[in-house]
């Protein structure tokens, strides 16, 4: 059985696309071959900056012959029908077979599809793969119409076995497949022929190409760590950078260089970022001091001077880059010493955050106001949280962050320390963007937590206020991430807070700012009063009514025709509900990943107090655990049965059976037992719910299970006697009520 070797040789493939492309080549080729009947033993894909390669071992030499039987018309059918069948099946009349079936004699045709040689199939599949290759971005070149990631120069495609190798006849847009390739651009540019995968990799290596990206990465990492170790240093691990660098070279040569005394005092993050982003250098750290002292660069070739010229050039470029960084750092530090961190933040008044949501300074003021309100909940000092809110984004106007946006927060922390602010404020500068992803660390210091929450909630309220919500895959302001961030901050820090109140307040604040240019002073004042009332009452509706009532009492409040206040009064509750539902959606996704079923979450979201996310999750966890027990599962069935009977009866009778059942009408022992069980469980459930002890409430519910089962076994609810029937329905209603007090079990599936 032959082996197949394919190489697609092109101009430099972007490093970030190589690994995926090697996988795609393997998957698409082998899928295509198998679909055409060519099975194989094993396959592997490879990539270098200039080539994608695929080896398939133990391929069938030809696809198997396939026989297919087709049923035709009845014997004696009109000639026309038989001729049509013959044409369709591609067989001659004398090859038809007559067979008896339960419908009588029928013609059968056996169609034989002969196997095809592997080379023919390979050429077809390869053409399809090349023409439809899923590059993230592809291009045309010259006068041709073929698309590839960069100009494709040659195709190597051979089938080999013990007898030798032969080229698979294949041609695409003027490129004819052969058995030749070439080595390293500078160290092995001559073409050579290959006869097998082993021959290919061996000759490539002689021509200074390491085919396997992981082998190149291992080599780089080995050499880099050895070099660093020899000097008592360590390389800062960066897998992303390692993979990228391995995709930039065919023949990695590791060189270690000096950073220059002048730059060693820069924050390590600055050195690391500048070296990585601009130069793709690894940072080399002194483990004793934690400082970055050297760098590792990876060249693509050996030279007669052992890389001395290359290293000197790289060092020079680095020095120019770091001079810039040092210049930014020194300017920033000077600015902070002169005007403090709030001084550094001052220019943010001229930076637009969003054309409808004002400047960064407006945004910071809103975050500060929310941070103050949140401080009692998070346990932060309100003044310290407010100060932190004012300065955490100061570095957005620093020179360093202008150059390296990814250092936002990290620089603010350094500048806060330079400005003599507390470590808690400094850490809040760095941490208030967190958490960014579902597995990112969540801050725990109260100041950082406060500002992190305020920042995200203000952003969400703002975009909801102007109705720019995420749709489908479009979420340009990363609002899903912000909502998940708020959720994780609350859950991880176990914060008992009613989100509604803070959402409402921030929505009103946004409404004030959105309407400020056109509104009358009294209208804005009334809205500000509502804001204060929310802080006191915690509920928008009550706050709104209080202020409106007060306005009605005053002599001539010039609030125009009142339409602004009315529209705010109408809009805020709707927007707030919608935003809370968005939080619930994010929470569902998050909890589903933690193994909690969506219907369980729905059952808990349907309960009052669902804007307290920590409480909501406790309830969901307890319910999930409860439903996993046998008692829980059975009680759920009992509840469903009770609810079904009850719902049907209520629909039929047009009444609600919630009068309470009377023990004196209980006839059966099972019925009496249920009365007793309910009498015992109800106060326990109520007590547990009062202390938010969901597990306790559910264990009390569990106590009902046997009585409920017993009741349904022994008792006919819809009795002839109308009094008995009504009493039993009222009893079921009590079961329903007890269950619904804990969670909306109607929403649980199963």
């Amino acid at each position, binding site marked *: 059985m032959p082996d197949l070797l394919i190489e697609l040789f092109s101009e430099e493939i972007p490093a970030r696309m190589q690994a995926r492309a090697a996988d795609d080549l393997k998957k698409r080729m082998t899928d295509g071959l198998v679909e055409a009947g060519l099975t194989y033993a094993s396959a592997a894909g490879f990539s270098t900056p200039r080539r994608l390669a695929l080896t398939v071992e133990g391929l069938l030499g030809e696809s198997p012959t396939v026989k297919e039987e087709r049923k035709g018309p009845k014997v004696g059918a009109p000639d026309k029908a038989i001729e049509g069948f013959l044409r369709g099946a591609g067989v001659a009349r004398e090859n038809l077979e007559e067979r008896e079936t339960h419908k009588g004699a029928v013609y059968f045709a056996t169609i034989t599809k002969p196997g095809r040689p592997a080379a023919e199939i390979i050429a077809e599949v390869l053409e399809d793969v090349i023409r439809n290759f899923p590059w993230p971005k592809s291009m045309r070149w010259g006068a041709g119409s073929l698309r590839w990631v960069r100009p494709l120069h040659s195709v190597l495609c051979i089938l080999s076995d013990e007898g030798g190798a032969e080229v698979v006849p294949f041609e695409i847009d003027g490129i004819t497949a052969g058995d030749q390739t070439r080595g390293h651009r500078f160290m092995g540019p001559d073409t050579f022929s290959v006869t097998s995968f082993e021959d290919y990799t061996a000759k490539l290596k002689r021509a200074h190409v390491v085919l396997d990206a992981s082998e190149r990465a291992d080599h780089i990492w080995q050499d880099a760590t050895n070099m660093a170790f020899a000097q008592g240093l360590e390389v800062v691990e960066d897998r992303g950078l390692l993979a990228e660098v391995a995709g930039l070279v065919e023949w990695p040569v590791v060189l270690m260089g000096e950073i220059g005394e002048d730059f060693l005092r820069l924050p390590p993050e600055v050195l690391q970022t500048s070296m990585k982003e601009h130069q793709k250098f690894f940072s080399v750290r002194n483990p004793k001091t934690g400082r970055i002292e050297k760098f590792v660069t990876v060249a693509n070739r050996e030279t007669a001077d052992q890389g001395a010229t*290359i290293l000197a050039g790289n060092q020079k470029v680095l020095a120019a880059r770091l001079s810039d960084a040092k210049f930014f750092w020194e300017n920033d530090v000077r600015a902070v010493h002169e005007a403090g961190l709030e001084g550094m933040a001052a220019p943010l008044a001229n930076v637009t955050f969003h054309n409808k949501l004002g400047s960064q300074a407006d945004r910071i003021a809103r975050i500060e106001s929310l941070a103050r309100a949140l401080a009692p909940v998070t346990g932060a000092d309100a003044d310290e949280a407010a100060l932190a809110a004012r300065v955490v984004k100061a570095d957005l106007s620093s020179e360093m962050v202008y150059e390296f946006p990814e250092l936002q927060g990290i620089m603010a922390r350094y500048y806060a320390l330079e400005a003599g602010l507390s470590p808690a404020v400094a850490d809040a500068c760095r941490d208030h963007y967190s958490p960014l992803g579902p597995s990112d660390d969540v801050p725990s210091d109260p100041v950082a937590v406060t500002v992190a929450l305020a920042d995200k909630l203000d952003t969400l309220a703002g975009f909801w206020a102007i109705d720019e919500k995420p749709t489908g895959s479009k979420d340009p302001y990363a609002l899903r991430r912000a909502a998940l961030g708020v959720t994780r901050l609350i859950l991880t820090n176990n914060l008992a807070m009613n989100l509604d109140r803070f959402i409402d307040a921030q929505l009103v604040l946004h409404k004030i700012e959105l309407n400020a240019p056109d509104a009358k002073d009294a209208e804005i004042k009334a809205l500000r009063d509502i804001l204060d009332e929310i802080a006191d009452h915690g509920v928008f509706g009550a706050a709104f009514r209080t202020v409106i009532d007060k306005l009605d009492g005053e002599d001539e409040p010039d609030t125009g025709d009142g339409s602004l206040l009315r529209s705010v009064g109408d809009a805020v509750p709707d927007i707030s509900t919608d935003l809370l539902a968005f939080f619930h959606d994010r929470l569902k996704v998050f909890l589903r990943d933690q193994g909690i079923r969506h219907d369980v979450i729905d059952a808990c979201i349907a309960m009052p107090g669902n804007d307290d996310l920590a409480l909501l999750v406790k309830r969901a966890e307890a319910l999930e655990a409860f439903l996993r027990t046998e008692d829980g599962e059975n009680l759920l069935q009992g509840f469903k049965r009770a609810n079904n009977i009850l719902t049907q009866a209520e629909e039929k009778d047009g009444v609600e059976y919630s009068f309470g059942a009377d023990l004196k009408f209980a006839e059966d022992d099972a019925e009496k037992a249920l009365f007793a069980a309910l009498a015992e469980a109800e106060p326990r459930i109520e007590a547990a719910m009062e202390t938010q002890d969901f597990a306790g409430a559910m264990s009390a519910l569990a106590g009902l299970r046997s009585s409920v089962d017993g009741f349904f076994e022994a008792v006919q609810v819809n009795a002839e006697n109308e009094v008995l029937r009504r009493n039993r329905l009222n009893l079921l209603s009590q079961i329903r009520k007890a269950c619904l007090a804990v969670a909306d079990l109607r929403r649980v599936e199963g």
Partner: protein
Amino acid sequence: MTGDTFRKPRSFQEIILRLQNYWADKGCAIMQPYDMEVGAGTFHPATTLRSLGSKPWAAAYVQPSRRPTDGRYGENPNRLQHYYQYQVLIKPSPPDLQALYLGSLEAIGIDMDLHDIRFVEDDWESPTLGAWGLGWEVWCDGMEVSQFTYFQQVGGHDCHPVSGELTYGLERLAMYVLGIDHVMDMPFNDPDAPIALRYGDVFRQTEQEYSRWNFDVADTDVLLRHFEEAEAECARILEQTAQDPKMDQRIIMAHPAYDQCIKASHIFNLLDARGVISVTERQAYIGRVRALAKLCADAFVQTEAGGWTPEAVA
């Protein structure tokens, strides 16, 4: 060029001359700079317009380029508001363009046996020209020495055939080859010439003058008006009928219109340097220039140089 006869260039102008000779040898028409203020060599109609349509083209030229926001009063070692780009455009892109390019580096004294040359992904996009392409920035020992791009679209038109474009930042490249740390110290002509001039002798004063004007003095009201005028004139030119009534022949004025587009683009850059364009307005201005570039591209492909033929119409 072999190792022992290999001679390093000694001045900025020698590097330019060697590039001119190299690309002339390779068959390019050596063009002269375009006589208008542009932000990059790409704006020269020899690149922008000639990359459109089906006619083959090969040109190389130096283009003085202006980036008002990069002015540093001549003090920064490598940032200038006025600098030179060397530009090569070949259509259709030849299959050996990478090798040709590497040959040009050798021609200016970069020894391939000692240096590490890398093609690092860098896709090019010019929002003002409605153009994009795929290619690389070319690194020599970690320093970007050129941009290498296969044009895919210009002025909203798909490029058929595709042009290969090379752009060398001449000052930076020359500083590297000559081993100079501050651009103003770079020999402009031969350092042994009777009157040896350094880059600073030629350009330090102008960098100061233009930096001051760009950042603080340029009259923004006048500039805003000029922008509007250029925009209006560009559109007006292209509204004219193809047939010139006086000459009674087809004369589409793609180039005069494109001049107005270039003008609008440069005025936008000046306004940007004066800091009077907000982030949101920026996008709007860029969109307006792009609209002009598209109109000009539409017009150019209706001209003979743009591949239009009377037969194609009939």
